[in-house]
C-alpha cells in the first residue's frame, strides 16, 4: 500500500526547504522561501546583491539558524541544522570570500575535508599503530585523487596562503569534494575570475556532477555561466523567491526579467 502512496526514495528531492525565514535583529534576510533540489541536479541560486542567497546557503549547512521553516535532507526533516551534522550527513561547501587554512599546505587542507572519515582512535594515530597506518594511506590516496581531479598536483605541498586567488578557489573546492559530499554548496565559485578561469571552473563543476553524481547548489552572478551550467534556477530578490524552474522558464519569467535580468531593450 505504501508503495502506491509514496514515490520511490530516489524520486524524492535530496534537499527541500520549506517556508524558511531568517532575520537578523529584526532585519529580514530571507522571507518564507521554499524550494526543492532534486538528486543529481545542478541548482543555481541567483539574485541581486543582498537578495539572501548566501544566507540561504548558511541556513542549509547550519552556520545560521532559520527562525521559521524546515529543512529536509534525504527525507530527514528538521527545523535547524548544525554545521557538524551537515558535514556528517554529506553537505560540503565553499565560501564567497574563501575559508581556507592559509597556513597549511594544499594537501593538508584537502585532508581536513576527510577528517570525518577517520575511524581510528587518536592514540592509534599518534603512534601510527592498529587501524591508523592503513587508514592514513587511504585518506592520503583519496586526497591525492581529488587533487589530481582538480589538477592542482603541482602545488600540493605549497602553502595555500601563497597561492594565487584562482588556485585558492580550486583548493577550497578540492577540500569540499574530498569529503565525498552528497550535496555541494558553492558560494560564488567563479567570483573574481577571468573568462578562461570561469570556463575551467564550470568544467570542473560539470565533471564533478557527472562523474560522482554530486548534487550541486551554487550561487553565481554571471548569467551566461548560470544558464549554461544549471538544470534548475531559483531566483531571489529582497529575500523572497520570485522565480523557480528550468533556465529557459526562468529566463522567460517577466518578474525575473524586471528584477534581475533587466528589461529587454
Amino acid at each position: 500500500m505504501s508503495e502506491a502512496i509514496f514515490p520511490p526514495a530516489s524520486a524524492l528531492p535530496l534537499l527541500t526547504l520549506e517556508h524558511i525565514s531568517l532575520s537578523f535583529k529584526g532585519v529580514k534576510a530571507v522571507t518564507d522561501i521554499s524550494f526543492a533540489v532534486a538528486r543529481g541536479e545542478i541548482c543555481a541560486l541567483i539574485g541581486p546583491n543582498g537578495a539572501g542567497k548566501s544566507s540561504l546557503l548558511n541556513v542549509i549547512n547550519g552556520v545560521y539558524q532559520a527562525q521559521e521553516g524546515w529543512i529536509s535532507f534525504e527525507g530527514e526533516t528538521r527545523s535547524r541544522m548544525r554545521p557538524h551534522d551537515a558535514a556528517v550527513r554529506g553537505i560540503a561547501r565553499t565560501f564567497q570570500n574563501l575559508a581556507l587554512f592559509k597556513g597549511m599546505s594544499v594537501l593538508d587542507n584537502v585532508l581536513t575535508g576527510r577528517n570525518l572519515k577517520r575511524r581510528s582512535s587518536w592514540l592509534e594515530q599518534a603512534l601510527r599503530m592498529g587501524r591508523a597506518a592503513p587508514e592514513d594511506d587511504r585518506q592520503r590516496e583519496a586526497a591525492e585523487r581529488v587533487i589530481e581531479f582538480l589538477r592542482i598536483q603541482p602545488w600540493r605541498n605549497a602553502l595555500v596562503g601563497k597561492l594565487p586567488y584562482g588556485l585558492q578557489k580550486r583548493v577550497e573546492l578540492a577540500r569540499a569534494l574530498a569529503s565525498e559530499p552528497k550535496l555541494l554548496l558553492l558560494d560564488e565559485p567563479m567570483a573574481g575570475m577571468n573568462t578562461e578561469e570561469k570556463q575551467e571552473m564550470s568544467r570542473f563543476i560539470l565533471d564533478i556532477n557527472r562523474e560522482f553524481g554530486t548534487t550541486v547548489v551554487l550561487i553565481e552572478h554571471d548569467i551566461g555561466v548560470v544558464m549554461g551550467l544549471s538544470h534548475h534556477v531559483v531566483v531571489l530578490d529582497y529575500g523572497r523567491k520570485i522565480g523557480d524552474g528550468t533556465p529557459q522558464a526562468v529566463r522567460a519569467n517577466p518578474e525575473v526579467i524586471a528584477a534581475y535580468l533587466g528589461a529587454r531593450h
Partner: protein
Amino acid sequence: MEFFFEVLIGGLLAGVMYSLVAIGFVLIYKASGVFNFAQGSMVLFSALTFVSLHERGVPFWLAFAVTLAAMVVIALLVERFVLRPLVNRSPITLFMATLGLSYMIEGAAQALWGAQVHGLELGVSDEPLALGGVLLSQFDLFAAGTAAVLVTALSLLFSKTRIGLSLRAVADDPLAALAVGIRLQRIWVVVWAVAGFVGLVAGLLWGARVGVQFSLSLVVLKALPVLIIGGFSSIGGAIVGGLIIGASEKLAEIYLGPVIGGGLENWFPYVLALLFLLVRPAGLFGERAIERV
C-alpha cells in the same frame, strides 16, 4: 671554563622549567588566539589539589589521575561558560575573561584546600651529579627528561592525529573548520584539558622545587619573556625561549652581576624580551604579529 659550562648547563636546565609553563600558554594561544592569563592559576590549582590529596594518603598515581580529571572538568566549564558565550569577541575581551578566570580558579583552590604552604616530595633527590667534571642537579635533569617526554607526546598528538589536524584548522580559520565538520567546542575542551595536564606537570615540578604555595601562580610572569622570545604560537619556540632565558639569566648573574650589582636574574629576562620585541616582535618562531596586551 668548566665553571662556565656548569653555569650554562644549569641555566639551560632551569630554562626547561620555564618552558614547561610557557607550553601551556602556547597550546591555548594556538587553538583560540587567547593569551590565557589563568594558566598560572591552573598550575597552582593542579599542584595544590595533587599535594592535598597526596597528603591525605591518596597514592601518587591516583592523586595524579584525580587531579587530571579535575583539570578536564575545569576545561569543560571554561568552554561552556567562558569561551562559548564569548565566541567571535575580540582577543582583548577574551584576555579580560581569562584574567577573571584566574582569580576564580585561585579562589576555588583556596576554598578547597586552604592557603598553607605545602612541601612536595617527588622522590627525586636534588643531590648534584658529576657528569664529565660538570656538576649538575639531578632534579633539573629529571625535569628536563620529563619535559622531553611531554613535548614528544604533544608533537605526536598534534602532528599525527585527527585532533592535531583539527586543532591547526581551528587555529587557522574557525569558519572553515566548522564547514568541514570540526566541532569547535570539542577542540577547545581538548586544548584546555591538555593545557591543564601540562599545567599539572609544571605544577608538580615547580611545587617540588619551591613548595606548593600561592606564589606558584606567579610563574606566569617568568613565562612571559619566554613567550615573547620564542613566539606565542610555537611549542618549539617555547622550548628555545625557555633555554635562552634560563641560560642568559644565570650567565648574566654570574658574569655581569659583580660588575653592575646582583639580583640581575630577576629583571634580566624582561630586558631581553624587550630587546626581542624591538627586533623581532613575532618572536623567533612566531607565525604572525602578536596581539600585545
